[in-house]
């Protein structure tokens, strides 16, 4: 292969591995399920060298997905031999179908792991290790022409979104200063972590939510819906609003201590309550003994303080240096334990 041009060199080196792995695959190695057993075998031989290799399968929350892909992209720039796949399955779906059965190495979640999920994992001898990687702020948005509901109290939000909200509820039903027009609601689908989080913090009970709304997993759909009517209201993660601040108006939330507008500053300082939340990622502790996964997790935590990646690229609130150091120490302790 003397004809390699520098441009094609990395692709070519992929070819040799592709040939080799493909060969192993074709040779009838059907037990290799794509993650730990077969492909990570390569990493054991390269422990001494600096070149990491192996596969990392990441599943879980669609909220953490953009952050995980951004970090994975950068990690791969330094470690081109590490094969990372990121799958957006929703927090619960990831635990249930992939992480706890041992199919994926890392599961992202936009809420802490539930007891049931923890049990499910333990039954399969999978121990999740909790890492907080960023803070997300949920934004309640209204149409740009809406000049009455720019500040809302948590109680008012509860009236609009609660399970008792009737189909023909008008803005005047919530606050008699507001126009007598029907409210059009655009919110998160029941499968998303955003839905769980919103209902838990605003209604105080998970899943308590009006049925009379347009559910979607796509932030863009919510924006388009809210843009379509001056009487519309919606909520979604902070990322979308951060990148498109002019399309819709964010509602300042009053949790008893005055209305606070959502922004990077108010969310990280904790002023923006109750709609800011931590985002998690859960590596499988047993897999942390594999060098490339451990190294990736260390990198993930280091990047969680990086304002350029977390805030500018993805639109979440970065962690502070102390918080990240704490996570890193915990992770290293867990890795050492696995030995």
């Amino acid at each position, binding site marked *: 292969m003397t004809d390699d041009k520098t441009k094609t060199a990395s692709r070519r080196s992929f070819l040799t591995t592709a040939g080799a792995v493909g*060969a192993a695959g074709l040779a009838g190695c059907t037990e290799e399920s794509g993650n730990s057993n077969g492909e990570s075998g390569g990493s054991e031989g390269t422990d001494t060298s600096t070149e990491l290799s192996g596969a990392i399968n990441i*599943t879980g929350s669609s909220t953490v997905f953009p952050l995980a892909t951004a970090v994975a992209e950068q990690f791969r720039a330094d470690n081109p031999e590490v094969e990372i796949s990121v799958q957006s399955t929703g927090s619960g779906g990831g635990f249930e179908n992939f992480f706890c059965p041992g199919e994926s190495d890392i599961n992202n979640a936009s809420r802490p792991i539930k007891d049931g999920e923890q049990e499910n994992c333990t039954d399969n001898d999978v121990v999740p290790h909790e890492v907080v990687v960023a803070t997300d702020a949920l934004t309640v948005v209204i149409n740009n022409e809406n000049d009455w509901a720019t500040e809302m109290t948590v109680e008012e939000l509860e009236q609009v979104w609660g399970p008792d909200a009737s189909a023909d509820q008008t803005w005047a039903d919530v606050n008699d200063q507001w126009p007598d027009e029907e409210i059009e609601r655009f919110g998160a689908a029941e499968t998303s972590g955003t839905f769980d989080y919103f209902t838990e913090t605003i209604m105080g009970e998970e899943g308590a939510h009006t049925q009379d709304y347009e559910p979607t997993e796509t932030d863009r759909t919510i924006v388009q819906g809210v843009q379509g009517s001056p009487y519309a209201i919606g909520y979604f993660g902070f990322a979308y609003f951060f990148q498109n601040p002019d399309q819709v108006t964010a509602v300042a939330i009053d949790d008893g201590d005055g209305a606070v507008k959502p922004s990077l500053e108010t969310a990280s300082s904790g002023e923006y309550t109750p709609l800011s939340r931590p985002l998690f990622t859960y590596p499988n502790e047993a897999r942390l003994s594999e060098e490339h996964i451990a190294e990736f997790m260390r990198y993930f935590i280091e990047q969680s303080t990086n304002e350029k990646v977390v805030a500018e690229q993805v639109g979440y609130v970065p962690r502070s240096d102390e918080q990240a150091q704490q996570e890193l120490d915990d992770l290293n302790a867990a890795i050492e334990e696995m030995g």
Partner: protein
Amino acid sequence: MATGTERQGTDRAAFGGVSRLRGVVFRYVTFAASLFGILSLAVLLGYVFWDAFGLETAAPAWYATMVVTVVLPVAGFLLYARRNPLAGRTALELAATATGGVLSGFALVVVLEVIAGPGLWFAYFLAMGVPLGALYLYGRRVEASWTGLAVLGVLVAGPVVGTALLGPLSRIGGFLGGPGVYYLSVIAPTALVARHVVDEYLDGPNGNYVALATLVAPILAAPAIDTVAVLSRSVWLLFFPTLVVPFSIVAGRNLATPGRRVGVAGPLAFALGVGLLAVVPDLLGVAGPSPWFDWQYVTSAPSQTAEQAGLYPAIIGSIFMIVLVALLTLVLGVGAALYLEEYAPSSGPAGAVTQFIRINISNLAGVPSVVYGILGLAVFANTLQFGFGTVATAAFTLSLLILPIVIISAREAIRSVPDSLREASYGMGATRWQTIKNVIMPRAIPGILTGTILALGRAIGETAPLIMIGVATTKFSPPSGLFGKMTAMPMQVFTWSSYPSEAFQHGVVAAGVVTLLVVLLTMNSVAILLRNEFERGDY
């Protein structure tokens, strides 16, 4: 219509008159129906192409340059071609050869160089390609009945031998290096085919010289190729048989025929115009379009930055998968269709079972694709342990999804072969197997290919079953093998469509759609070429 007004009057009185209005209205309703889909799709694709090629940023002067360098010459040639159909045909032939050559060249590079790799390809070439080729050549010279069975033997034993001896065989490939492998396994057979084609169908040049040129030219051109950065020797050797050789033969033949010579001017003017369009605006300082769909896009990994985002892993994943799906469905689908149409009993209790199976296959074609996703998850990912989201799982799942469609269309194609032909064949003393091989299959193949390619088009755009079997949403490298994790184009494009930034919404997604369309059109055009080849055949 009656000529006399008087008689028309009596007709009306007798029959109550026939209004033409209903017919006219009906005609235009059908016209609107046929335009509806095409127009809405055209508008959408117009938007997508506008975004994908970044045509918004191009200055009016750029469009003016385009009109002068490309549109006017081509339009002029088209006008001329109306008066001189031979020139038009020549131009069409050249353009089709060039486009088909470029597309199939890319397909060949992706399948051999990127997915299989020279070592793996050479191992199977030695285990299957060489024996098959030798048997074919021997069978042409010597009339022997055992060659057919031997071919079947190689088809069955070849993959086994190739897999068993993969290590040593691919080491031979490794010793030769990529270019060496392609020279032996691609260029050498091409030389044989070229000799055959030139000797059989063209009068004039001696096939031996053409074969010699095919063998020598790629080596002589190597120093020149080395100076082009994006073109490695391997890529050159793979494009040589798909693009350079056919194009040279077609161009040479057209140039040798006086009446057709003028037809070469059309494609030449187009190529020159595009070249000028690439150079002139830069020199004049005119802003051109800023395409999202470009070389960088198809060769780099996904990124959070729209400008650096690429579809490479997904393109390779999709093509890898669809090649496997095509192999599986052709073998299984045509096999099942042949059995059901030609062998299966059609009367008695067994006939009822056959009928039951036939009806059920038709029903299976309508089962939602998510259901097949669950099936794939249960059977291939869990039970057979092919792994979650691997190429093998995805290929088998999608094969199941489109098998009913392939079987139905293949059955239709086989059934459309007139019974009189079958009976004539039997009457001549041919066995059933000989009838299928010599009479039915040659006539059914065009229909089978059309049905299969439509089904493959559906498979490559399928997303729901892929989500079910755990195919990755985003991956940064192509699948590492048959049991490596993959991602597919529709998955990646769908993910991008929910990214908040405008650049993703209107640039990267549009470019993804264009890529998907290009791959699909490549598949279709290869199939159409094959079909035409079989239809033209004189059986």
